[in-house]
């Protein structure tokens, strides 16, 4: 097993697009690491550069204690599962799983035996003589996994391996993959555009945008303290409220209403903001209360939309010039046009810079 270290990695395509634009990252030995980001942000490019399928334009890649930057893909001791699985259509399941062993010049009998052994672990033993076209999506995905496992690599690279499965299978595969990775203990880089997948499976994750990494941390850290407005907006089942505000007279002026500068125990000093600063006030809808009567630190608004989320309700209200979302229990569901009083829990509020990359203020 091995750690993976990327230093100043850049991948520029011949057409001038920078798929990866200066990435520094360290992935620990045995870690399940998720790369999350919107489509086109460079996740696949990063993974392919790591695999050696694309040559790095700048920077360096270390796997374990080897600098593999100029290595051929086959010399890097990694295994990759492609989004379309890339199972060889003319080979049986056995031959597909055993293919890495064939390259390693393992004898035919031993190959088949080891392929069967791996396949049994993934409940594929009954399908060994089939061809990929005769398998369901979930089975194909497991064959692709088995093929990656069979070559005992130092690092697994997964490019959206669950995206071709239907919703239910995807949930099952998520659990299964996570358990499998833990039992094998192989360092894993898992690319996905689905934040639920990343949050659920990863030990640590990185959020990417425009070829750069915008935040690295555990799923909890990323969820609770998004490092900038991009991550704040991207992560979460319902997007975070990001409201423009200005510090006026020691409070936050939202244009139409004001709220106190949040702070742990009411200490405004927790947020180093100065009079006149423009900030972005971020709070998840889950942490906004929707009160029927006016209260301290609440903004008055009018309900403009009510969406059912199952056990809870997403309320959108217009407060002054701002549109604010709150998640309330279904028992408290207001009606359209009702006047409500929106109270953010102040210890959950995050303040971001209104300029630059919208970084979190303070730390």
């Amino acid at each position, binding site marked *: 097993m091995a750690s993976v270290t990327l230093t100043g990695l850049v991948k520029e395509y011949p057409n001038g697009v920078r798929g990866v634009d200066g990435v520094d990252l360290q992935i620990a030995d045995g870690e399940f690491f998720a790369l999350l980001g919107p489509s086109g942000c460079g996740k696949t490019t990063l993974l392919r550069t790591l695999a050696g399928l694309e040559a790095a334009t700048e920077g360096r890649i270390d796997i374990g204690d080897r600098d593999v930057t100029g290595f051929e893909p086959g010399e890097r001791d990694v295994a*990759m599962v492609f*989004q379309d699985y890339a199972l060889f259509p003319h080979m049986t399941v056995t031959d597909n799983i055993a*293919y890495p062993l064939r390259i390693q010049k393992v004898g035919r009998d031993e190959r088949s035996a080891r392929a069967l052994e791996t396949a049994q672990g993934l409940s594929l033993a009954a399908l060994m003589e089939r061809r990929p076209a005769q398998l369901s999506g979930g089975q194909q995905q497991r064959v692709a996994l088995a093929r990656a496992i069979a070559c005992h690599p130092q690092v697994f690279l997964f490019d959206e391996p669950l995206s071709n499965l239907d919703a239910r299978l995807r949930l099952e595969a998520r659990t299964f993959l996570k358990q499998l990775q833990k039992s094998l203990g192989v360092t894993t880089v898992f690319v996905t555009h689905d934040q639920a997948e990343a949050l659920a499976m990863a030990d640590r994750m990185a959020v990417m945008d425009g070829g750069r990494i915008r935040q690295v941390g555990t799923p909890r850290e990323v969820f609770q303290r998004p490092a900038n407005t991009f991550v704040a907006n991207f992560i979460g089942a319902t997007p975070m409220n990001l409201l423009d505000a200005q510090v006026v007279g020691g409070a936050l002026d939202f244009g139409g209403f004001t709220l106190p500068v949040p702070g742990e125990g009411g200490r405004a000093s927790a947020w180093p903001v100065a009079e006149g600063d423009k900030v972005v006030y971020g709070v998840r809808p889950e942490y906004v209360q929707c009160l029927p009567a006016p209260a301290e630190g609440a903004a008055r608004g009018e309900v403009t939309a009510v969406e059912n989320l199952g056990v809870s309700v997403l309320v959108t209200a217009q407060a002054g010039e701002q549109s604010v979302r709150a998640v309330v229990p279904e028992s408290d569901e207001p009606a359209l046009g009702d006047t409500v009083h929106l109270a953010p829990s102040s210890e959950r509020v995050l303040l971001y810079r209104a300029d630059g990359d919208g970084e979190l203020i303070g730390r």
Partner: protein
Amino acid sequence: MSTVAGQRRSGTGSGTVSGSRSGTGSGPGRGLGAGALRLVAGRSVMYAVVCLLVVFFALPLLWLVLTPFSPTPSYKASLSGFTLANFEDLLANPQTWPSIRNSLVLSVGSSLLVIVLAALAAYALSRVRIPGRDQLLYALLLLSSIVTGTAAMVPIFLMLFQLGLIDRQFGVVLVLSGGLLPAAVFMLKDFVDSIPRSYEESARVFGASPSQILRHVVLPVIRPGMATVGVWALVQVWGNFLVPYVLLSDPSKQPAAVVMYTFYDAGGQPNFALISTFALVYSVPVVVLYLFVNRRYGFAFQGGIKG
């Protein structure tokens, strides 16, 4: 012939009935009776046209099917009795089998040459960015439709003469392959382009060498494309008359396409017994082969010329 009327009609069977019910339907229901009538008229015209087309395409083929079995074969395509005597004549003719064999040599030889060279070229052109590859392909394709045929027959004749390849089947194979290659490369490249690169990439990550990837992955995956192009080349050569006619003068080397024109008797009259049976025997293999491949793999050329 509106589609709405078509659906109604198939639902209710009679135009007038559905017309009287049209009050319950939506707007376009008005005038359904007339619509259905027009539909019937349209259908009849359509069927008449289709029948005419069937006759048009079938009529010339009639002779090929009937005459070989006629006791009195002539230009007349009629079923006046049934006999296999003409086939006995054909079998007895000393030129029959050698010419079919020559056809086989020429077409299998050209087909193999075309497949191998086209597969190599198509793969490299599809996967490696060689400068000017699109223009090259395009120019060759145009050139091949331009130059094959009569336009370059004279220089080809002179060139083969200089090379000492006149009256040699090898020369004919080379000339025919050269003419077929551009289109073959084009079709195969289309095919290779449609194969996901992740197959090769995945093998590559497992450490396979270029030659291993080619042998284990690429070759098996593009085999259907090669089969299609191979049969296409085979059919083209099998039916080609002009090139072997101009380049081969020794009757013992000539293929069936040319030999068919030698079945005339002393008076200059065509020997219908020989010609009709020979035409049938000579046509069947290529037709069967083509229909088989067409059914199995579909039409290879999707017209995907990129501008």
